[in-house]
């Protein structure tokens, strides 16, 4: 906790390239730094008391408050630094800020675990979000390095975000279209299972980048040989190799979950379905698929989260996506720019994950479903 206030917190650099000056939160912010420290201490104090219905919420509020205070103070410092140094100035976060962020996350997480009601947990999750939105809306953060980079890259950002979503949603959509029939087929016949699950397993163990490397000449040759393929925009470079690799990775959880879900249906249910005169298709659509749905959905969720993260791959072979921004940042040793690429990916993955979990719960699935 102390390190978060005592360690290198902000670095000030006149521009992106040169090394700057590091300061701790207390050096940089004075009284606001002490306030954050006090909030932390209070939060720790609450943690020591006997847990009651409200203690979790209080603890999370204090923890989030500390980090939000630090954030606001950093924004203010960045603004005054920029006023001196001009538009090229970059005020970036140091290790201590990330530690503070992690600490706040852990506090909120444990506080959420000890809070009994769903409403309390929602409140805990909303604290940091509302705080962040409020700070952004008031322009308090506008001069921070990460925000500046974001503003600068915004035109490219939108384009790369779109491409990133295309990879993630496209691969997942393809996995649904192909994986569910493949899973059904595997559940029906042992031969099909061996062939399908065997090859998908093989795809799983391949290192992703090597896999892309293999796909490039193959797709390139396909594109050269068949003009119809080429007309689709499929070639050895660009989106196609990455898309295919992401698709293969996404197929695995969807197919496996479909297979497992159908296999675990009570045999008596299938027996009576048949015994009452349902044909194969009817039994599939009226009995097997509805019963398998929550588990299949869990597979889709895993595929989507995995593809969202995996789409970074595209940047390696010039396929675009948010990974491009990240690599650009790495080249320029600008942590801020890296974050502009990475944070949205993390956020997307979290949102997809949470959203599909809600749907799963409504569909009657269990919490832990074959992750």
């Amino acid at each position, binding site marked *: 906790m102390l390190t978060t206030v005592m360690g290198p917190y902000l670095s000030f650099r006149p521009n992106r390239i040169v090394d700057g000056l590091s300061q701790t939160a207390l050096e940089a912010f004075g009284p606001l730094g002490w306030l954050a420290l006090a909030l932390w201490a209070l939060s720790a104090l609450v943690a020591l008391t006997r847990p009651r219905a409200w203690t979790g919420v209080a603890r999370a509020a204090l923890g989030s408050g500390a980090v939000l205070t630090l954030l606001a103070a950093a924004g203010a410092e960045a603004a005054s630094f920029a006023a001196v140094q001009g538009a090229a100035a970059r005020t970036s976060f140091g290790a201590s800020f990330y530690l503070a962020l992690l600490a706040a996350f852990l506090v909120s997480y444990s506080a959420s675990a000890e809070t009994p009601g769903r409403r309390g947990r929602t409140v805990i999750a909303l604290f940091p979000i509302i705080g962040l939105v409020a700070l952004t809306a008031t322009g308090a953060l506008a001069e921070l390095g990460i925000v500046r980079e974001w503003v600068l890259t915004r035109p490219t950002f939108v384009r790369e975000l779109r491409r990133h979503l295309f990879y993630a949603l496209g691969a997942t959509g393809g996995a649904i279209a192909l994986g569910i029939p493949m899973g059904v087929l595997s559940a029906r016949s042992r031969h099909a299972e061996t062939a399908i699950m065997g090859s998908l397993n093989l795809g799983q163990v391949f290192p992703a980048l090597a896999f892309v490397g293999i796909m490039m000449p193959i797709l390139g040759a396909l594109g050269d040989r068949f003009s119809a393929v080429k007309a689709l925009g499929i070639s050895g470079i660009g989106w196609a190799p990455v898309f295919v690799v992401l698709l293969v990775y996404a197929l695995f959880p969807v197919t496996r979950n479909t297979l497992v879900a159908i296999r675990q249906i009570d045999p008596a249910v299938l027996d*009576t379905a*048949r015994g*009452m*005169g349902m044909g194969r298709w009817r039994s599939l659509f009226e009995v097997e698929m509805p019963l398998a749905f929550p588990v299949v959905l869990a597979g889709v969720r895993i595929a989507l989260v995995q593809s969202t993260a995996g789409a970074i791959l595209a940047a390696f072979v010039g396929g675009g996506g948010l990974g491009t921004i990240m690599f650009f940042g790495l080249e320029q040793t600008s942590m801020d720019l890296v974050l502009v690429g990475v944070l949205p990916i993390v956020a997307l993955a979290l949102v997809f994950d949470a959203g599909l979990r809600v749907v799963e719960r409504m569909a009657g699935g269990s919490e832990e479903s074959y992750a």
Partner: protein
Amino acid sequence: MIELRNVTKRYDTTVAVDDVTLTVPDGELTILLGPSGCGKTTLLRTINRMVELDAGEVLIDGQSVRSTPPEVLRRHIGYAIQSVGLFPHMTVRRNIGTVPRLLGWETARIEARVTELLSLVGLDPVAYADKRPAELSGGEAQRIGVARALAADPPVLLMDEPFGALDPINRERLQREFASLHSRLGKTVVFVTHDIEEAVLLGDRIVLMREGRIVQTGSPEELWRGPEHQFVRDFFGDEFGLRILSRHRIADLKPGAAPQGASARVHLDTNLRDALAIMVTESVERVSILDGERVVGGLSFCDIVTQVRESL
């Protein structure tokens, strides 16, 4: 009428059903009885083509079951099994309406039928129609299972140990209800069980099987009076006679003279096994028979023992 002619079914090395010929008369409740693994389930499932034959043929009302596509055939044959197999994602209403839906009935007709069937199996339609299978007790689930099998009013009903998974009290209650249901509806029922008590209680006819073959066929009384093999005697054991007694009521016997003075009284509807139990409990050889409040005669220990063998 269901006719099985020289029916054989093999699995790899085992012969599950071995050259079985059997006629199941209309409107009767025929029991397939025998030790576990003797081929009862396999034989039952040849009737609705859940098992395809290696040899022989199965006819329903003179027509081979192979002349109809299996799905169509099965929609006209009720089917209920021990593990019930209700669809967990459907309401009771939808479960019961399955076959009518497959047959393309109109919604209103299905709805009316569901209500009728729930009442028939002794469940309140309002309370149960919208429940899910997970909310039902074992006995309730099995009642729904029977209702579902009866939904499209099939002339033939196949049941594979339908009450086998229930606790003794529920099992007996459902057996009695089913017996009265059967006597009202007059369906042709083929009923698999390995439980002798159940077979003797419910069966119009018992088909006793061993190792894929039929040992003897007949009413419980016929098997009791005239066992054709030692296996029949061994299988039913010494209690067979007592179990036969439970099939008959005092009203089925010729009444004797009423005993003098104070005596134990039993009602005309009491079954003979219970009457015997009362004699033993009260330490009397003779009881008065009541019809309502009126004494209409007497029954002695000897009456039961002699008349049962001769006249039932």
